[in-house]
């Protein structure tokens, strides 16, 4: 079920004009910002499909910028997001991708702050709902219906057990889990959907495990 709540249908409350091209775009930008964990100095946004053809008319560029600034879908500052981004020293470049995406409303967002880069691909599926289909080159499928923990780690035995133990110790139930790696022994990514939103203490307990690069909490 892509849409779980009645408020996915009667909602969101948002600044117009388009739920998929404005509100959905804000949310994709916001997820990227949450994953990045800081205000980036530079952002590269690539639009595909319908996003690429109509982003100006729908204010998709303004909306993604608003998300990168961590604004909500109903924040009236969305209208001035490009100006505010410039004032805050966030350089944003918009590109048009030629690839034909699986879904028409697709955007790739790269956020950079000296030395660190966050990259994800988000899809706006309609009515303001989004899915994240790629993080750091790892194909994933994330609806954000539940609080989600994103863990970057080294691909070796025992990592899943150690992370799961931390969650068990904090009485957090895992609803769904997915693990992907680039190649054997290389970098890997865990996406863990949980029933209870994890506290900062939980995330910190995951981060200190040997072999863990980062642990971030996401809500879409």
């Amino acid at each position, binding site marked *: 079920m892509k849409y779980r709540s009645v408020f996915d249908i009667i909602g969101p409350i948002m600044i117009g004009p388009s739920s998929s091209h*404005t509100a959905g775009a804000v949310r994709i930008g916001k997820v990227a910002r949450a994953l990045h964990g800081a205000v980036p100095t530079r952002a590269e946004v690539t639009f595909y*499909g319908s996003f690429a053809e109509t982003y100006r008319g729908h204010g998709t560029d303004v909306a993604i910028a608003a998300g990168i600034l961590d604004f909500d879908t*109903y924040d009236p500052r969305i209208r001035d997001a490009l100006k505010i981004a410039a004032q805050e020293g966030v350089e944003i470049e918009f590109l048009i991708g030629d690839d034909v995406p699986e879904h028409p409303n697709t955007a790739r967002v790269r956020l950079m702050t000296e030395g660190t880069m966050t990259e994800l691909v988000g899809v706006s599926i309609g009515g303001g709902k989004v899915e994240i289909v790629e993080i750091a080159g790892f194909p994933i499928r994330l609806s954000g219906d539940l609080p989600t923990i994103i863990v970057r780690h080294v691909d070796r035995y025992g990592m899943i057990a150690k992370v799961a133990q931390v969650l068990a110790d904090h009485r957090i139930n895992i609803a769904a889990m997915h693990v992907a790696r680039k190649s054997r022994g290389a970098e890997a990514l865990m996406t863990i959907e949980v029933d209870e939103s994890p506290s900062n203490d939980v995330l910190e307990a995951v981060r200190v495990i040997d072999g863990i690069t980062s642990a971030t909490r996401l809500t879409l």
Partner: protein
Amino acid sequence: MLFRTIEELVRLAEREGATIAEVMIAQEMAVTGRSREDIRSQMGEQLDVMEAAVRRGTEEEVRSNSGLVDGDARRLMAYIARGETLAGADILRAAAMAMATNEVNAAMGLICATPTAGAAGVVPGVLFAHAPRLGKTREAMIDFLFAAGAFGYCIANNAFISGAAGGCQAEVGSATAMAAGALTEMAGGTPRQAAHAFAIALKNVLGLVCDPVAGLVEVPCVKRNAMGAALATVAADMALSGIESRIPPDEVVQAMYRIGRMMPATLRETALGGLAATPTGLAIKERVFGGKALTANQGRSDSRGH
């Protein structure tokens, strides 16, 4: 999950002797673990945002940046006030209030998506035009939104609700069918009658393409919301009179889905076909975006905001 199709929704309501709104609330409680009061209170907030947008669009001068939207809702309200209408004041008020919401939306104002922003006018237009005349309380209006949400939920999980995925039939079409079903229930119809109103309304927007001029959510979106509100009202009256849809609601949703899958990308919110590709549509695009406008397979890099 209590229901995922309209047939399941109606059967559940019939079995429990409940309204469609009540079944939706029960499902929301089951899925989210939230209390009834909490859920109803959030729907009250959505209602308040809708009401504020309708008021702003019917009372204030609302203009979009492009100038294509400039107060048609007020124009129609003034015409109704003169008392000489052909279609009747109530149905036209629904149309005007639908346009009011979409005009506020086009001006980047605050709205509640139902189910999307481009189709956000139909449901509140129908609700705020008919509820006062039917003597409905705020609680009854909140129920209307849960009923509309239940129908939309079945479309969203079995087909689509975005113009980019399924054309305007999936957006304004869905909103029209949702409003028709909810209005039937608010007016005292049975869950079965509400489902027939839903099906009758959706059948009449099948094949509607999404062809926004210059990619703006303005032309033809605003007026399509007006017509959606009118259509929803007529469909509700037909169902209340005892007329049934010969094709069951879920099969109409499936037909809408299959038609959307067959629609070329040019007619799914890319602004490359339909009204967007008419000489006037292209001229508007040129005027609004000038030489900066991108067309398909052209000018691939664009930098703004710094």
